[in-house]
């Protein structure tokens, strides 16, 4: 009841014309910046910070939060249309979003992304509103051993992302983990694999690898095909029928919940959330084997997950004063300069700000949907751009995005290098997704493991004595063993069981015809 009252006051704050205007500006600016490959929420917020200075702190945080989820949504647009994720959290969206776009269903993919993002964001805000004070104890309950177990569970997604040849998938994942180890080792301050180059001391930036492996590699294959193949210029309507909405309802709902709680954990964030949602859906979906070739569920799950996680990552910032992600770290810095100290006292000392922000997130989500649904046909027209114009543009955006991050020419060479690696991987049937996954989770997994062992003085039982860790590792075992059990059981039923994929195939064909205009 009290919460409802405060929420009412919060909407009072959010609905002042000034704040509504700035939510709108923030979301719009965030979306536009996020669409550009390479520019994610961090760059978007950094760009908007000078504007925020001098504003009323409540209005400023409302605008910057709008920029944040606008940028995440914008990133999914470039993931789907160009295979050029601007944001780490939308890499998983490209796995099915880009194939959908190539099949002519770009409008549909963008609509699914918009609806799933809206749902994820809304579910996140509702959860934030209802249980934020309780959540701070959840956010601190994860120790290093638990993070390690979470990352291990995340890495099992390699099996589902690996495509047909599991060995090649594992090789790609190992290479990803190896790349994640480059730089100063946080536990001993030792330099690893830096070859004496200061540019590598802080490691290889995720975005460089993602843009190289996905966007540049795609550009190279387009060039190599000399115009054959590529995106289908034809465009389906963006309207989703009831059946399609029904299909994505489950993945969206589960992705929202899973994403939110992953986002609450400091350090895990939207990227881990989107990968976890994607691989969970792929595993439980009946048509799991069509994931990766344009399954709408594969767009809905990570999109719901990353937006819910973006909201979730506000929990540690608002309740503990601790940034849950790189982006909220920048937000936190901006707030400090504005004279606001987010943290445990914020809810009691500045309730108007806390609830105003929560309410404006809700408003921002609606703005995001209203703003973007009408724009989708326009965005989707990008694919009608002649190849001769589109390819150079993608390259320009990748270069600008990477250079804008560090102002370092060295990083551009890295980008080119990973583009070539990505192209060679494609030519030889190595999937890029496991490599990205290994890169994201590898360093975090290693760091957590060593922290846990440091605390326990090398006692490995620390991984099973913590309840979270034990449960997550148990789940990992189940996830890995289950397909074997299933195979043994179907194997016992005889070779006819092999036809299990045909219903899925039929459904896929049907879906293909349904997407024609």
């Amino acid at each position: 009841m009290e919460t409802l009252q405060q929420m009412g006051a919060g909407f009072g704050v959010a609905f002042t014309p000034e704040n509504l205007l700035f939510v709108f500006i923030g979301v719009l600016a965030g979306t536009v910046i996020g669409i550009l490959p390479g520019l994610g929420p961090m760059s978007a917020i950094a760009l908007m910070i000078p504007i925020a200075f001098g504003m009323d702190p409540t209005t400023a945080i409302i605008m910057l939060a709008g920029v944040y989820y606008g940028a995440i949504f914008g990133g999914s647009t470039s993931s789907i249309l160009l295979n050029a994720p601007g944001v780490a959290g939308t890499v998983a969206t490209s796995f099915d979003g880009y194939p959908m776009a190539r099949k002519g269903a770009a409008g549909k993919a963008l609509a699914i992304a918009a609806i799933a993002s809206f749902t994820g964001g809304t579910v996140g805000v509702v959860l934030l509103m209802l249980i934020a004070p309780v959540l701070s104890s959840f956010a601190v309950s994860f120790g290093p051993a638990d993070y390690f177990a979470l990352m291990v569970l995340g890495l099992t997604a390699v099996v589902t992302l690996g495509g047909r040849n599991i060995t090649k998938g594992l090789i790609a994942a190992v290479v990803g983990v190896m790349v994640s180890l480059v730089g100063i080792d946080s536990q001993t301050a030792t330099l690893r694999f830096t070859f004496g180059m200061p540019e590598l001391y802080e490691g290889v930036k995720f975005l460089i690898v993602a843009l190289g492996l996905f966007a540049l590699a795609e550009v190279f294959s387009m060039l190599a095909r000399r115009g054959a193949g590529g995106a289908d210029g034809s465009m389906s309507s963006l309207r989703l029928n009831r059946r399609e909405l029904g299909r994505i309802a489950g993945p969206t709902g589960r992705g929202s919940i899973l994403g939110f709680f992953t986002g609450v954990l400091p350090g895990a964030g939207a990227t881990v959330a989107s990968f976890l949602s994607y691989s969970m859906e792929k595993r439980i979906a009946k048509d799991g084997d069509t994931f990766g070739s344009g399954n709408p569920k594969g767009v809905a799950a990570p999109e719901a997950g990353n937006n819910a996680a973006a909201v979730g990552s506000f929990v540690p910032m608002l309740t503990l004063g601790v940034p849950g992600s790189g982006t909220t770290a920048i937000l936190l810095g901006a707030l400090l300069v504005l004279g606001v100290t987010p943290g445990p006292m914020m809810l009691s000392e500045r309730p108007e700000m806390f609830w105003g922000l929560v309410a404006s997130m809700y408003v921002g989500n609606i703005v995001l949907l209203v703003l973007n649904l009408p724009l989708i046909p326009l965005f989707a027209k990008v694919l009608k751009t002649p190849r001769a114009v589109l390819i150079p543009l993608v390259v320009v955006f990748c270069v600008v995005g990477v250079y804008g991050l560090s102002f370092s020419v060295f990083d551009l060479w890295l980008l080119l290098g990973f583009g070539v690696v990505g192209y060679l991987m494609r030519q030889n049937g190595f999937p890029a997704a496991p490599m990205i996954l290994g890169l994201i989770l590898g360093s975090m997994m290693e760091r957590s493991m060593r922290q846990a062992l440091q605390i326990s003085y090398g006692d490995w039982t620390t991984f099973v004595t913590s309840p979270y860790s034990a449960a997550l590792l148990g789940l990992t075992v189940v996830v890995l063993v289950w397909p074997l059990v299933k195979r043994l059981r179907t194997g016992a039923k005889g070779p006819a069981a092999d036809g299990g994929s045909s219903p899925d195939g039929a459904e896929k064909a049907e879906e293909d015809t349904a997407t024609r205009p």
Partner: protein
Amino acid sequence: MFRARPVAVAAALASLALAATACGTGGGQQTGGGPWKPDRPIEIIAPAATGGGWDTLARTSGRVLEEGGLVDEPVQVVNKPGGGGSIGWAYVAQTPDTPTRLFVTSPPISLVPLMGGSVYDHRDFTPIARLATEYMVYLVPEDSPIESWGDMVDRLEEDPRQVSIAGGSSPGSMDHVALAGAVEAAGIDPTSINYVPFDGGGEAMTQAVGGHVDAVVTGASEAAGLVESGDLRPLAVSGAERASTLPDTPTLQEEGVDFTYDIWRGVMGPPDMTDEQVAYYEGLFTDMTEEESWKQQTEALGWTDSYMDSEDFGEFLDRSSTDSAEILTTIGLIEDGEGR
């Protein structure tokens, strides 16, 4: 501040002599035309990405300088992230003929080179002014059996394995040095400490609140919120005086430990700046620290005013660098004499 040692004094004198020769030779074309003034926009380099401590310092300075009308030329903040600062330092060190290119700095300028992460250290630049400082704070979770700093020392003496202590940065960086120096001064072997590095003070404090580690060392202003809410209990601060954000927390010296550690923040310029140029910037930054908006900003950030002019700042840098080198040598992270 830091314990003065004969070595430190000698090093300070030596480097002063060096600085004097450097100043004498560098000023060729600039002298003779009255007081020096910048003839193009002033660049303030933040050797880190946007959003961090250096970036905040650079942008706050830039804003106060421009809004206060203290400069005729615009002030541009440029981020040169990478290598824990070394990319930005190399950039400034390689342009000795650009006296309008300054950078913001703090203890890593001596720690990173000591640990082998940068070929340039503070002696390769011209100190301009120390602006502000902040202290470290040592905290335990609210429900911890550890009652005071002395109690923690007793437990560490009994069995260092009893107390795991989190920090927000890798071994050999500020948090670790501030911890190792304090326990060493309290008579404990700093190599026996179970220091667990995390990715940032926020993460380290979260782990302490959750009870995954027994104690945490981090910046005083960063910890203020969780102290006020009662989630963390401060044992001591590393300053010579109590921190304004934590007025009830004793200093290490009050707890009988002869050790202080400053997270100082300052401005440096490229090598070989002329006396006129240094004098201009000293005046500029003195004016800046007297601006009302600067005082408001630094108070909000939990920084204490601790202005030092170029000469004092240079000596201070030599002293603190020597002290840090000694601590790092004691912990065994660097060989004796390495980096000096």
